[in-house]
């Protein structure tokens, strides 16, 4: 509740900003879509979107860019959630691109890099003109410069040197046919904000975000889940550990951390004292180079 001083708490302020952004897109675009992976950021985004249009359902479908290397718990959660919110789900699959020879898979690397092609294809096939993503500016250095409304040319490319100035709460979504706007309603949220919101709002998340027992493998200083997608290297032997995941992505390169946190509150307590950002600890592919994310964004990735 707001105090008599007419002040919002930081979570209320962040939510109000995101609600404003959702409504702005709904009012000014013809074919928006919300990217939904079943991960915590996309789930918070969906939760806020549902609140923004109450009592109506959100006036747009959701799209999952499917690496084919999903945790079973996450796919099950995705389908359950889409049903619960009464949404239309569009799936754009990396496997289709591999089968059609449009992209070539490097068995040594994860499939996260291959998502770019599937994402752009999905946008093109459905003629989406606004694409909501759950990216946050605190995640990494290139994203710190990202706008809320981010213009992408017909090849989905991001030009960091030529971004539109963004002032007040006025967002410029002008684009021509074939171009689109990426929209980031959670731009100003931090990981801690996300977890506090999950706790405050009882946002439903896939079970792997909370502590559970599973077989894991040590690799490159990370803990990886031992799933059917993971090919063991020489000398690796899986063992049981009590872990939780901080992001959900390609199961072959998304690391987990040892944790006993079984509720959002316990996760918040862990995050608040954490000395590691979530990407560095758990995403093998972001370690490629200091400018890795910047290069991927230019190609059209988030």
């Amino acid at each position: 509740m707001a105090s008599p001083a007419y002040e919002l708490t930081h979570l209320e302020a962040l939510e109000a900003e995101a609600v404003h952004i959702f409504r702005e897109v709904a009012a000014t675009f013809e074919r928006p879509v919300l990217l939904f992976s079943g991960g915590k950021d996309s789930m918070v985004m969906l939760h806020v979107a549902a609140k923004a249009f109450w009592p109506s359902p959100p006036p747009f479908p959701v799209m999952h860019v499917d690496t084919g290397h999903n945790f079973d718990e996450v796919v099950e959660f995705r389908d359950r959630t889409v049903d619960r919110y009464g949404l239309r789900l569009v799936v754009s699959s990396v496997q289709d691109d591999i089968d059609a020879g449009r992209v070539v898979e490097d068995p040594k690397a994860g499939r996260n890099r291959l998502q770019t092609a599937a994402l752009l294809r999905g946008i093109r096939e459905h003629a989406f003109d606004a694409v909501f993503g759950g990216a946050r500016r605190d995640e990494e250095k290139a994203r710190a410069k990202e706008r809320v409304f981010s213009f992408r040319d017909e090849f989905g490319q991001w030009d960091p040197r030529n971004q539109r100035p963004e002032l007040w709460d006025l967002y410029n979504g002008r684009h021509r046919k074939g171009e689109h706007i990426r929209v980031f309603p959670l731009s100003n949220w931090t990981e801690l904000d996300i977890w506090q919101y999950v706790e405050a709002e009882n946002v439903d998340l896939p079970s792997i975000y909370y502590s559970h027992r599973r077989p894991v493998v040590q690799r490159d200083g990370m803990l990886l889940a031992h799933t059917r997608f993971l090919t063991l290297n020489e000398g690796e032997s899986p063992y049981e550990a009590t872990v939780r995941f901080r992001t959900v992505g390609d199961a072959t390169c998304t690391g987990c951390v040892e944790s006993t946190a079984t509720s959002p509150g316990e996760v918040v307590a862990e995050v608040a004292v954490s000395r590691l950002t979530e990407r560095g600890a758990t995403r093998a592919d972001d370690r490629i180079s200091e400018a890795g994310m910047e290069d991927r964004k230019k190609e059209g990735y988030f």
Partner: protein
Amino acid sequence: MSASLVRLATAGSVDDGKSTLIGRLLFDSKTVFTDQLEAIERAGRDRGEAYPNLALLTDGLRAEREQGITIDVAHRYFATPRRKFIIADTPGHVQYTRNMVTGASTADLALILIDARKGVLEQSRRHAFLASLLGIPHLVLCVNKMDLVGWSQQRFEEIREEFRRFAMKLQVHDLTFVPMSALHGDNVVHRGASMPWYEGTSLLHHLEQVHVASDRNLIDARFPVQYVIREHSRDFRGYAGTVAGGVFKPGDEVAVLPSGFTTTVRAIWGPGGTTVTEAFASQAVTIELEDDLDLGRGDLICRPGNRPHTSRDVDAMVCWFSEQGALKPGSTYVVRHTTRETKAEIRELDYRLDVTTLHRDETAESLSLNEIGRIRLRARQPLLFDSYRRNRSTGGFLLVDEHSGATVAAGMITGPSVTASNVVWHTAAVSRTERATRGLTVWLTGLSASGKSSVAVELERRLVASGRPAYLLDGDNLRHGLNGNLGFSPADRAENVRRVAEVAKLFADAGVVSVVSLISPYRADRELARAAHEAAGLPFLEVFVDTPLEVCEDRDPKGMYAKARAGEISGFTGVDAPYEQPKSPDLVLRPENGDPAAMAALILAALE
């Protein structure tokens, strides 16, 4: 945890140690994570630097790391138990003025860095001016690198006095000075022992304490409709948007602009359908109204007695963003203002402002990238606005290039233009005596249902029948077109009368008898109408249709009195709004004068 959210903007260049300061805030408030530090240390070692370069925390893009400058607004986040902070970190060089303007637009507080060795530079003045232009309520001068001037109190005070003298020219309400060393950390997060003469607090302590809650406008209720939410199964129609000023409560009487209709707030819903008893500035809500008024995006809900300006002609300060071309009078752009989008022509460039000396160059003919100046623009549809000083939400706008889609300028409205004084009157080649007929204006004023319109209709009929061109200007009819954007507040009624008077004057000038039928309840407004005619040398006949209120109420042909008595409409003349009788009308008509035809005859007689 219910911390509040505070938005900061930083301005200053790499040379002042700005990135180091932000790095220090993040580092000392324990929000720099180990892996980011490792990456910085690696990058630093590769460049052969001795100590971790905190600036690398904030300069993200490769081009910036290569050139060692900050080329775009970067957002940083840190938190203390009391507050969460969003930093918009903007480059300080003059060629990036647009980035500072962008980063500063929503800031509660601006941090301006000064190198203690160099003192107040052009750049410092420019940053302070931009902060004041963007209406940032609080300014903190970080006098950095005090370690390089021997922690000198005298040097700090020189800088403080010099800056204060300059700041007196600006509208800055809260100015704070902190001597510090970002490199060593003194006075950033902790006080440090190096400057015992300094009696203030550390920067972070100040950021945690500064009072920002009262900076928003909580006086003028403003709600631009952003999106309409319909749910047919529940017969729900809600107007979604973000409160741009003031406070709204269920039961409040409100006016809807531009139509001017008044109604009542039935309910207010927060996101997800929470019940809201008071919706205040910055909240995103959905408002339900009692009456079915069919509002849409771009309309604005306010209180009947407190409306924003409605005008197509606006004066504004603008900062020009485009590298592709300059702002020149005569060009047309798309205007984004609140939730309204329309096109506007730049009518005039009043002056270009030198942001360092505040000198106004009135000979300037264009504005180039990063230049700031004052313009007048004329929008195709009226804008509903307040001055930017009064309300950043309803006073700010963007100009967008129609073809490229680029955002080419940000504007801060100073007020409605008074354009007439600058427009030169073109004398026609035809004089009034050369026209076929002589025109004049007959102005019928009186209560609703007093019989004005019936008399006016009859008068027009008779004039035309006798071969004299006449034309009826009926107040109700004009509200469908010319005055369709006006309501019934005293201000809108004044504008209504002004417009009708101007149109009547044109008809009269063209040789037509204008027959005006308008309640026009305020004496002063009617006097202005008469004065306008007299100034133009045209006859003006004020006819007071003096029918007693009770007679009008008995007639009540449109059922308006009944509605007003029932409280369904407000501001109704004779019921809850005043009617000021003319003091010296040219003619008074009363019910005993007979029917409309007889009264029209009396007017005709008066015209002979």
